[in-house]
């Protein structure tokens, strides 16, 4: 069944913070599982039609990454929380190092891998 959320793009505040579950080993499965995520409060996710493990595209300053939705009480009430690291660094700069605005939308795509960003970086 087609989900109405697919057509929705909403502007949110993104808060960037450290996630204790991200390991030092950036090539591990555990790294990807804990770094390529966006945390949303349950109520906010429900109101906007997002569910745990959905993939959302986050777009800021013309750049996008796809991250997996995780439900968490520690997320901002009306926004998303993403961990410090390569995804946040891709989306923002020092003007919005800890907080910035972005558009989010549900996508039927894979999450962005660090290798995708590294490839673009190498140009």
């Amino acid at each position: 069944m087609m989900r109405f959320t697919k057509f929705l793009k909403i502007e949110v505040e993104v808060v960037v913070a450290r996630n204790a579950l991200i390991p030092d080993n950036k090539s591990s499965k555990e790294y990807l599982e804990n770094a390529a995520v966006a945390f949303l409060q349950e109520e906010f996710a429900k109101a906007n039609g997002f569910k745990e493990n959905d993939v959302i595209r986050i777009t800021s300053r013309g750049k996008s990454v796809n991250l997996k939705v995780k439900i968490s009480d520690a997320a901002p009430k009306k926004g998303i929380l993403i961990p410090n690291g390569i995804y946040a660094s891709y989306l923002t700069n020092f003007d919005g190092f800890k907080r910035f605005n972005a558009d989010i939308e549900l996508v039927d795509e894979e999450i962005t891998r660090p290798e995708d960003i590294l490839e673009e970086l190498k140009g």
Partner: protein
Amino acid sequence: MVDYYTCTGCSCLCDDIEVELDGENVKIVKTACRRGSNIFLEYKENRAEPIIDGKKVEFEEAIKKGQELMENSENFAIYGMDTIPVEAQKIAIEIAESKEAYIDNSSTYCLGDLVEMVLKNELPTATFEDVKDYAYVIFYWGVDPHNSLPRHMSRYTYYPRGKKRQRGYEEDRYLVVADVRKSHTAMLVAKNARFIQVDDDLKLVDAFIKVIDKQMPEKYADDAVRVIREMQKADFNVIMGGLGLRYGLKGNYEKFKEMMNKMNEVAKVYFIPAGCHANMRGFNETLFEKTGFINKYSFKDKESSLDYAFFELLKNDKVDTALVIGSDPVNSLPFEVSKKLAKINTIVVDPRNSFTAKIAKVVIPSAISGVEQGGTMIRSDGVRVKVNGLFEREINDVYVLERLKEVIA
């Protein structure tokens, strides 16, 4: 007799880690947090290899190539040093001095400004041991230690019983958490505690100043009144400031210092930077001793300036060669800045195959601090910690830097 090791996963530098080995395999890690345990348990994973232009080479070839690039560089920068021992930081500083190079670490966009105020005695400070023994109000401002400094509260601040704090955290401590969201640390706020959901840190600073001056602040009046009242109950209180505070102040440090001075007119309040990288403060202190500045320094111009911040140098194409050691800037710097690293001669010295190693011209493998190399590190409260390596490798940060220095000295 148990041997204790030091975790270099963050600036807590917990030195009570027990490790059980089977030969060179780590079997069990006791006491460490999850991130710290992984550093020991997975020390063999994702290791850097000697690389030149994406191809694996012998270690000596990588060293020679690194030396060649450094020798031929006309605008050279050294960056990182956040996780390497002070002994290695000193050699990096010597190289920068000899090359009249730029030198910087992550503190420039992290907690450097807060550390600088402490080192210049502009903010009263204390050690974790003092906090544990004496602190009543423990105020985490713009930091979520639950995630960034996992044992900060359990080992050093809120939970342990201390000399003058014998009745446990429920009665003998007052926890304050100021954050833009209800972080995991803020969720601990229950009895004898207060969460301040702050959307403007400067207004909270202003509220404290106004309440002490018996004026009505624009916002946070109830919070400020309650926190000041609690601080006045004790002769030792502490504010632990993190990145959220640093960015929330938007450079208005004079206002923050005014607030601390005002607080100290009515109570005793100390400040400790609450940062992440194991030896970020070590670099700040080491460079400070040498130059009087803590970061973003040019040995050519003999001054520190935002123009010499590593990210500004890259953005403005001011360096042709960069030595990155003990840091992974591709993980933490904005994409547009990291992109420049892929264009210049980047030499990475790192035990891990970091993101920056994957785009570097030369990669030189090194040792993991606390696991394969020891040395001195400085905790976020300024206490020097002697780190013993679980193993001692011949090839470590001191060795690699000494080898690179051969062509400079």
